[in-house]
């Protein structure tokens, strides 16, 4: 029996007022895979991820996550997934320990105190656990967001620009954490990012979006070969500036 896809998006359309943010996209993620979602501003990445998380309702089409239709059956699977984005903040006045306690309780994590200590060690937060989140540097806040995203050891992790505004050392360290977590947990990850080096390093598959459509969808190596480019950044620029191959041919 084939495994249930971690994410299945079928002919998803999302229209805000009269403007289509996502226009009939389809893709499936197999469990344990890491996929990058690329696209310029307004390409539809955030709307796609928000629909997968059940934050928005599709205008038409269907999204299933771990076998549950979103957002209708979201409470069947929300405890098995999590999300991290530098654009969604954690309460600033609460300490890291307090924030993780609250989210751990929301996700039903057993032996929560131990789990927080464990994440503190793994994400190098132990000495900061009792400091208010608002008094941390950007890099430390990112690690707190990551700790919140991993608090329930999710099978499915959605990441929206996980290393935005981080220095190269911290960004590299976060990528290492994500790689290790995926390997240990066999988790599925969907990463929206503008950082092509990050996508090349982490992702075994790349979906490129433009104006609500999927422009291309393949492994990084095949994309490079197809566009005759040396880096994903060059491929991204080709697609963004309309120098790409026709969508139908790409698909």
């Amino acid at each position: 029996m084939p495994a249930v896809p971690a994410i299945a998006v079928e002919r998803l359309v999302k229209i805000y007022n009269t403007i289509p943010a996502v226009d009939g996209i389809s893709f499936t993620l197999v469990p344990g895979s890491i996929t990058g979602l690329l696209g310029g501003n307004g390409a539809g990445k955030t709307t796609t991820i928000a629909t997968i998380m059940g934050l928005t309702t599709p205008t038409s089409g269907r999204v299933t996550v771990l076998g549950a239709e979103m957002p209708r059956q979201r409470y069947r699977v929300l405890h098995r997934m999590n999300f991290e984005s530098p654009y969604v903040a954690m309460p600033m006045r609460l300490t890291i320990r307090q924030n993780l306690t609250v989210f751990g309780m929301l996700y039903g994590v057993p032996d929560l105190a131990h789990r927080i200590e464990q994440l503190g060690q793994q994400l190098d937060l132990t000495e900061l656990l009792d400091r208010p989140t608002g008094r941390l540097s950007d890099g430390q806040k990112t690690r707190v967001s990551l700790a919140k995203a991993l608090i329930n050891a999710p099978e499915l992790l959605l990441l929206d620009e996980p290393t935005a505004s981080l220095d190269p050392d911290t960004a590299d360290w976060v990528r290492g954490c994500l790689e290790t977590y995926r390997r240990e947990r066999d988790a599925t990850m969907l990463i929206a990012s503008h950082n092509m080096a990050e996508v090349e390093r982490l992702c075994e598959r790349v979906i490129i979006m433009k104006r609500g459509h999927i422009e291309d969808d393949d492994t990084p190596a095949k994309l490079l070969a197809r566009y005759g480019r040396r880096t994903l950044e060059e491929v991204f620029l080709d697609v963004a500036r309309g120098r790409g191959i026709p969508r139908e041919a790409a698909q």
Partner: protein
Amino acid sequence: MTARSEAPSPPSPASGGGKINEPSPACGGGEGGGFSPRRAAAMMLRYWYLLRSSWPRLVDLVYWPTVQMITWGFLQYYIMQNAGFFARAGGTFIGAVLLWDILFRGQLGFSISFMEEMWARNIANLMMSPLRPIEFITALMVMSIVRLSIGLVPVTLLALAFFGFNLYGLGFALVAFFINLMLTSWAVGIFVSGLVLRNGLGAENLAWSIMFLFMPLTCVYYPVTTLPVWLQPVAWALPPTYVFEGLRALLIQKVFRADLMLDALALNVLFFAAGVFAFVKLLQSARRHGSLIQAGE
């Protein structure tokens, strides 16, 4: 950052190798799990941490009720010295002020706890967590009582010390007044929270001002018969009107009007159901319009 130059250790799934994203029975995970006291408690804990961490928030809870009680207390003291009717009706103003504060602060306590999530840009984290609307609402209701108690208990003691008005002397009637006023404040708080969720912080001002629409219509300081005849049915459609009429009946005629309390309770059931219904519909609308992604102005 001691470990930064080394390869990071894996954020392992769980201690002991077990899966930890299987919710514990108390968590009530899954579609059929229903209400989870642990998740509701998590939100109460979140607001308690916040209150505890901020003394200006605590001072703010006590400041305005105290100022209002003292102002109206002195006014009543002055009128009692100059008017025979009010001399017999001791405490009507100050009692009304305290009951009004239960209504107003109850709603504000609910709405402010909700808006803390909007101000902290944390609402998306909550909406994609297993937290259910009914658990969120329950936590906000409990926190409105906590915030109200912090603000109002010292003020009632001051009213006793300064003006000899013992709110607790109302006995069972106070319980009936309190339940009815809290139900109304929650119904309005739930509705306003839905509006803020749907429309962003642009609707924030409603949280501060909506209850003042009730003030003239619910006849806080005067009998319903003072209103024009055509406006009186509107007043009687609002549950707090029955409470303030009940207070005056108790203080002036020394009669506890159970009939008024039951009418208020029946109306409150309708108001509360309407508030929850509106919240759910506004939440659905927020999902359709993408408001949960851009929860801000």
